[in-house]
């Protein structure tokens, strides 16, 4: 059964240019379509009419690459919990409904076009210390250092971050604390990351601040939109590690 939805989509020609919400009607929408497939269909008809299609990022379309990210009716990644935009299906919406679609908004995520933003700030945060400094070839046997299962599981909880930036988009301060703390926690929990724990947290936080992200108001909206439901406990741990690092 076909549905019709009305869309209000943010259109912006390029970085720094003025943008506005433009109305579209998507008909012949199928309940089994993903939200992005619905946009594909809208774009097909725009192309056929000779109009500029709506630009948006997406790649794996199964919730792991972190490319997609739209603010759907005011919520990053839309209404489904623990899901990315590409995992939202049209059966979540009612026929005739109006849906507002905006890009992730943050000073540190400049809009490149329409719904496409530049999230390279995240890469620079990782480059500032989100790794274990070891060269290929120097690794000891993988089982030489036992790690308790609960510690490994907790590290994995943090390591699951897909770097989509929804945490920034949902935060009223456009803070990147959840992203940054997830990496700090992942590496900080493991013995392999212990040696540069202090240096890592200080450098990564410094880079994060320098990118123009805001600060944390401890509201946890980031955790609520996170497709992997990464806990703001990670942020507390980052705070602790940071304070410890600058005191010691």
């Amino acid at each position, binding site marked *: 059964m076909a549905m019709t939805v009305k869309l209000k989509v943010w259109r912006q020609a390029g970085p720094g240019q003025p943008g506005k919400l433009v109305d579209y009607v998507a008909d012949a929408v199928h309940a089994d379509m993903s939200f992005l497939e619905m946009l594909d269909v809208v774009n097909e008809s725009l192309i056929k009419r000779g109009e500029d299609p709506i630009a948006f990022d997406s790649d794996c379309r199964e919730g792991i690459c972190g490319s997609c990210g739209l603010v759907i009716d005011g919520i990053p990644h839309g209404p489904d919990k623990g899901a990315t935009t590409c995992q939202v299906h049209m059966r979540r919406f009612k026929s005739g409904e109006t849906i507002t679609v*905006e890009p992730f908004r943050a000073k540190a995520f400049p809009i490149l076009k329409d719904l496409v933003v530049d999230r390279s700030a995240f890469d620079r945060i990782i480059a500032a210390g989100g790794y274990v400094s070891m060269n290929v070839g120097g690794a000891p046997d993988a089982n030489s250092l036992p790690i308790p299962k609960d510690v490994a599981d907790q590290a994995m909880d943090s390591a699951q971050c897909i770097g989509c930036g929804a945490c920034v988009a949902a935060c009223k301060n456009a803070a990147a604390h959840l992203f940054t703390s997830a990496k700090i926690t992942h590496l900080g929990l493991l013995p392999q990351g212990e040696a540069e724990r202090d240096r890592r947290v200080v450098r990564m936080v410094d880079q994060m601040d320098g990118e123009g992200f805001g600060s944390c108001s401890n509201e946890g909206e980031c955790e*609520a939109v996170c497709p992997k439901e990464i806990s703001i406990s990670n942020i507390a741990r980052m705070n602790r590690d940071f304070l410890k690092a600058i005191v010691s």
Partner: protein
Amino acid sequence: MTPPVLSSSIGSKFLIALTGLFLFLFLVSHLAGNLLFILGPDAFNHYSHALISNPLILVAEGGLVAIFLLHVFKTVTIVVANRGARPERYAARKWAKSKNDRSRKTLSSTTMILTGTITLLFVVTHLATFKFGPYYETAEGIRDLYRLQTAVFSDPGYVAFYLVCMAVVGFHLWHGISSAAQSFGLDSPRWTPRILWVGRLLTAVITAGFALLPIFTFVAGRN
């Protein structure tokens, strides 16, 4: 370069939490002292005299003002910076809490700057009313703050104003206490729910205590 503890986002929040903690401890002691009002004029006036006649009070007051101003200053700076982190607002905005109850966002957490500003204004009028208010003297020749308080809270309008202000302070603490714990980095799967719960309990106790006084004074004054 300023030390990262003062200028970083985490350091700033740490300072806000730390000053907030001091202000909270002040509230606790302030409430404890004020509750002596219930014991009658002698107890209350002797206590307040002991307090204001102590030469160290100037140091304490200065410290308190400094802490208060630092709390305000860091908060205002950070709010301005946070606004700058999202220059263009969303056209549609909805709390993510609506899709996932992992969010701790509340009306309290979204109005911190507003409740903080109201608290600041309240503190100014509060000081003007009491500390710099009319000087009554007891027969012993010490300041009769019991009389002042009785006079002030004989006006039902002022009682209402005061109660509203206490509600605002309570609103601020509702998010503030647990948020400070998070800023200090106090968190664990076992303790975080308890911290949240204790924060709210403390808020309720403090707010109820401060609300009790004007009501008690008003009722006692009419009898």
